[in-house]
């Protein structure tokens, strides 16, 4: 399979891509969850990974991070991930953390420094400053001393984004960052992500909120165990691709400039 590329221009063609994924496959027992997925992401791009539930979206993020046994290769700025793991940050789904754990917002963001600091070193003044700066980037610094459990879902999502930023990564992988929050909050988060990509961070996120696709993303990656299509939203979102990705329960209807997707069930 040829490597699909979402290069915004050919000018970067000589530099290694921010993220290069080749023939990434994941098997759970005898089931092939990811089937030889290959793609490249240029530095500063905001990429949405879409697909139905169980299509392997989260598995793709975890395979890129090396959290799940996978075959294939992942290169970060041309080097193996193992040498660059500090440069890649992960933002989990907010329900994936232990909500019994008592912590302030600042405590959580400072945790982003754990891997960077390394063994036997305690977070110091510089780490707390980085944490505050990260919180300011997501407009949450005024809540630094609040208990994380007392925040709304959207605020918690922004705290986890700040924790990832405190790691000072080049690439952020976000698992469903706009799920479980209301539409205005989704807009806030997507604008934050857009701002981050403008500062040169490369972002990949999984989502099943199809109504935001058109104007927020540089590229869409349609996944259903294998890579169905990858490229700018306007090129990717054709009826054939959508049907191959989501199956026939989905109706594609062009409405004014935007493509609106209606689904047969609410789960998407």
């Amino acid at each position, binding site marked *: 399979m040829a490597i699909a590329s979402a290069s915004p221009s050919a000018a970067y063609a000589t530099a290694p891509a921010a993220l290069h994924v080749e023939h990434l496959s994941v098997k759970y027992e005898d089931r092939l969850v990811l089937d030889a997925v290959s793609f490249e992401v240029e530095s500063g791009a905001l990429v949405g990974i879409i697909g139905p539930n169980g299509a392997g979206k989260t598995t793709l993020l975890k395979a890129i991070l090396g959290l799940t046994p996978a075959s294939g290769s992942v290169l970060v700025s041309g080097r193996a991930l193992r040498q660059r793991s*500090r440069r890649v940050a992960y933002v989990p789904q907010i329900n994936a*953390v232990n909500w*019994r*754990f008592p*912590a*302030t917002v600042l405590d959580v963001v400072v945790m982003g420094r754990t*891997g*960077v600091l390394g063994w036997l070193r*305690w977070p110091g003044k510089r780490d707390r400053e980085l944490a505050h700066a990260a919180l300011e980037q997501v407009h949450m610094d005024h809540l630094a001393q609040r208990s994380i459990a007392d925040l709304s879902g959207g605020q918690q999502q922004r705290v986890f984004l700040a924790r990832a930023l405190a790691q000072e990564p080049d690439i952020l992988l976000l698992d469903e960052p706009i799920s479980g929050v209301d539409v205005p909050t989704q807009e806030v988060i997507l604008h934050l992500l857009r701002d981050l990509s403008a500062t040169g961070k490369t972002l990949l996120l999984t989502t099943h909120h199809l109504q935001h696709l058109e104007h927020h993303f540089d590229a869409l990656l349609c996944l259903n165990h294998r890579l169905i299509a990858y490229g700018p939203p306007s090129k990717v979102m054709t009826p054939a691709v959508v049907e191959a990705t989501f199956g026939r329960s989905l109706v594609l209807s062009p409405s004014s400039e935007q493509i609106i997707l209606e689904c047969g069930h609410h789960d998407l």
Partner: protein
Amino acid sequence: MTCSGVWNCIVVPLQFGPTQRALIAAILIGALCAVIGAFVVLQELSFIGDALAHASFPGVVIAALLGFNIALGGAIFGVATALGVGWITRRSKVSLDTAIGVLFAGMFALGIFLLSLQQNYIKELFGLLLGDVLAVQSGDLWIICGVGGAILLLVLALYKELVLMTFDPTAAQAQGLPTGVLHYLLLCLMAVTVVISIQSVGIVLVVAMIVTPAATASLVVRRFASIIVWGVVQGIIAATAGIYMSAYIDGVPTGSSIVLAHTAMFLLVLLVSPRPGALGGLFRRA
């Protein structure tokens, strides 16, 4: 034991060497259990902790019969059982909690069987099941200090890693931490804490020493470090109250009185907890 006046009542038990040693041992163990307990409660490992205590029983019995250190015998069987649980779950479809249930009851039964081969074993059995901190010798005290100190140093050295793993294991893994190693290390630290505590509070009640301080703290505090601090303070209070209760009420085992002090504090805090909905918070987002 009798006394007159408050000061006299405080001083009288401390005139006896066994009570002095018991108080020091109970305080050290109470504090140690509370530190480990903060991680155990938040990672929901209480059941495994209880199982480890019961599984160490045959080792404790064999060591007691042969005159070795009972903590060492208990540790060997506790760790062996933990490995056995891993072995069973890997080679069969038996779930983790079932494998633990099977093995810990089986090991406990083995301990009772071995002990019952002795004459007059009922008294011995009670001693091991319920603990007797008043029987602590100065040699035991040094073991508690040494092993407990080593555990606390390890927790301190790996604090930020253990904290991240407790709050968000996936992020810990994504940041490059060896979460599997850390998980087994925490289980080992818990197993060692359990066995060096058995002499004071006994096999049946040791889990309360670990779980109750952190459970009480989590009703009130807003930061993880505060759970540890609160737990240590509560551990010291319960140890002291328990030793005095046992000194003044004839025949009350120290394990029972210390754990009762912990339970009373938990219930008290539950009733007067300043945070509205603190009780609900225990179950929220389970």
